[in-house]
């Protein structure tokens, strides 16, 4: 809902245009254009080495751009980094934590670095993620370190959350808890910018997503529109084997494609509602019916396959 409240007139939470960055001869970012609306959850996708982390580090002023303009929450990170980072929560892609001090002690330090965060807030987040604050950070597993990283990113209720590969190392149950935290942050008006190398990690949470490849944004997509276009693959098992005539009958349905039969089994893809398919199938005895969730990643690139970069992007996407 929050995303819809943000009108076009509102200044974007992140506004990048023509961003370039080279390391020596290697071009890391080659004219990135990206606008993230205030209050939306935005997925930032791309394979490793495509420029995701470089872009994020420019937003935080760890890296200085060669050209282009960058505005985060209305501020230029290069000149106004300290004030900007006060309103940002950041989860790095690779978390390093050492030392024999406890997770609680480390989070206490981060809280003081923010000018103070109520202890109860840290304990609440740690409780939600099942993080034991008394354990020394040195011995923590990757997943537990990720929890420490999530707590410090969310604890001060920032206006903008920048999360680099947030779900890596989290088991499925914790991924759900994480997504609930993201939704709550959005309901409270925060903007969430999260990167991933796979679409499936963000497709449940994101309002929109962009794909970066070779230092350039190759696609930006509304996730609801993407889901609406989704083609489901159906598989039906009947009590008796199907004949060729019956297969043609299914194939004649308006939104059904790719009908194949093999003995008593029929598979096809359905564009939109499966109502007609179900009604036709119900004339026979159905033993089993299943639908496979669409591969949004595939879909993402199908849409952009005509574009110059889309084809290349698709090849590397598998």
């Amino acid at each position, binding site marked *: 809902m929050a995303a819809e409240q943000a009108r076009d007139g509102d200044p974007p939470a992140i506004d990048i245009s023509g961003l370039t960055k080279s*390391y020596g001869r290697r071009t890391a970012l080659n004219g990135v254009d990206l606008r993230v609306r205030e209050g939306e959850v935005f997925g930032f996708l791309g394979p490793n080495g495509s420029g995701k982390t470089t872009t994020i*580090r420019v937003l*935080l002023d*760890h*890296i*200085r751009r060669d050209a282009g303009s960058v505005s985060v929450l209305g501020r230029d990170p290069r000149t106004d*980094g*300290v*004030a900007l*980072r*006060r309103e*940002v929560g*950041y989860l*790095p892609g*690779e*978390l*390093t*934590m*050492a*030392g024999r*001090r406890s997770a609680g002690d480390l989070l206490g*330090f*981060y809280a*003081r*670095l*923010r*000018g103070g965060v109520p202890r109860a807030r840290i304990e609440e987040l740690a409780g939600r993620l099942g993080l034991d604050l008394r354990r020394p950070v040195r011995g923590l597993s990757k997943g537990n370190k990720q929890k420490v*990283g999530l707590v*410090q990113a969310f604890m001060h209720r920032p206006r903008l959350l920048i999360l680099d590969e947030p779900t890596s190392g989290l088991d499925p149950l914790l991924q759900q808890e994480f997504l609930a935290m993201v939704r709550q942050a959005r309901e409270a008006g925060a903007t969430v910018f999260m990167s991933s190398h796979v679409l499936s990690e963000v497709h449940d949470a994101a309002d929109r997503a962009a794909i970066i490849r070779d230092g350039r944004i190759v696609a930006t997509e509304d996730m609801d529109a993407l889901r609406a276009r989704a083609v489901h693959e159906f598989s039906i098992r009947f009590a008796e084997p199907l004949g060729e005539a019956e297969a043609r009958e299914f194939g004649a349905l308006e939104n059904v494609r790719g009908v194949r039969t093999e003995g008593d089994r029929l598979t096809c893809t359905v564009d939109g509602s499966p109502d007609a398919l179900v009604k036709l199938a119900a004339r026979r005895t159905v033993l089993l019916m299943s639908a496979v969730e669409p591969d949004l990643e595939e879909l993402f690139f199908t849409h952009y396959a005509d574009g110059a970069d889309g084809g290349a992007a698709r090849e590397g996407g598998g």
Partner: protein
Amino acid sequence: MGVQVFGRFLRERARGLAGWSLAVAAVTAMYAAFWPTMADTADLMQQYMEAMPAMGEAMGWNDMTSPEGYIEATVLLLVPVLMVVAAIGVGARAVAGDEEEGALELVMAYPVGRTSLLVQRFAASAVHTAVLGAVMFLVLLGLSPVLDLGIGAGHLAAACLSTALVALCYGTAAFAIGAVTGRRSFAIAGGAFLAVVGYLGDTFALTVDDLEWMRFTSAFYYGFDPEPLVNGVDPGYTLVIAAVPLVLAAVAAAVFARRDVLV
């Protein structure tokens, strides 16, 4: 915010600092404790040194028959080396080490300015060295009456100040190289190289006329040539080794504020 980065860095070093303090105290006490034995055989030692003047000069021995001369030739030869090693380690860790490990990334995502970060880490490194200097001073001060050294507290303090400042020079060199390059290995290698050149420049190079200029590039020369145990603090030379770390830290801050971090 405030000085959180300063405090945190020191607290993380607490165990290491305790270990170095112990080492400095042990070496200081062990060598100082031999003075009474040494005093009894001073004549013998003096003859030995007169027989090999070049050796004495190379090792930085002047006069082994006075307590000042003895402490200078032993404690002030070894403890500075220990403290330089400790300072280079901490200086290299302060920026480059944390940057390479990735620990700097999160701190730099917080509302802390780069200059503030650098100044706080430098200050913490300086305090680390100052603590070791204070340990050395306290051990010498405590042992002085027991061993009948007869060196005043002011002169002992002057020698320990020189030692700490020499260590800080090389520690800050490592710190600055790390802050400029972001590479811990460069920081350690650079700091160690300068320290070795400085150490040799003020000892072995003195025996070769052509290499005598080397002593002017040596913090050891500015720290110990005025013989602080005998003469107390030399304002001019002390100013040199106090200014060098500040200049290095300022250069480090200026470069660090402009460069890309963590690439």
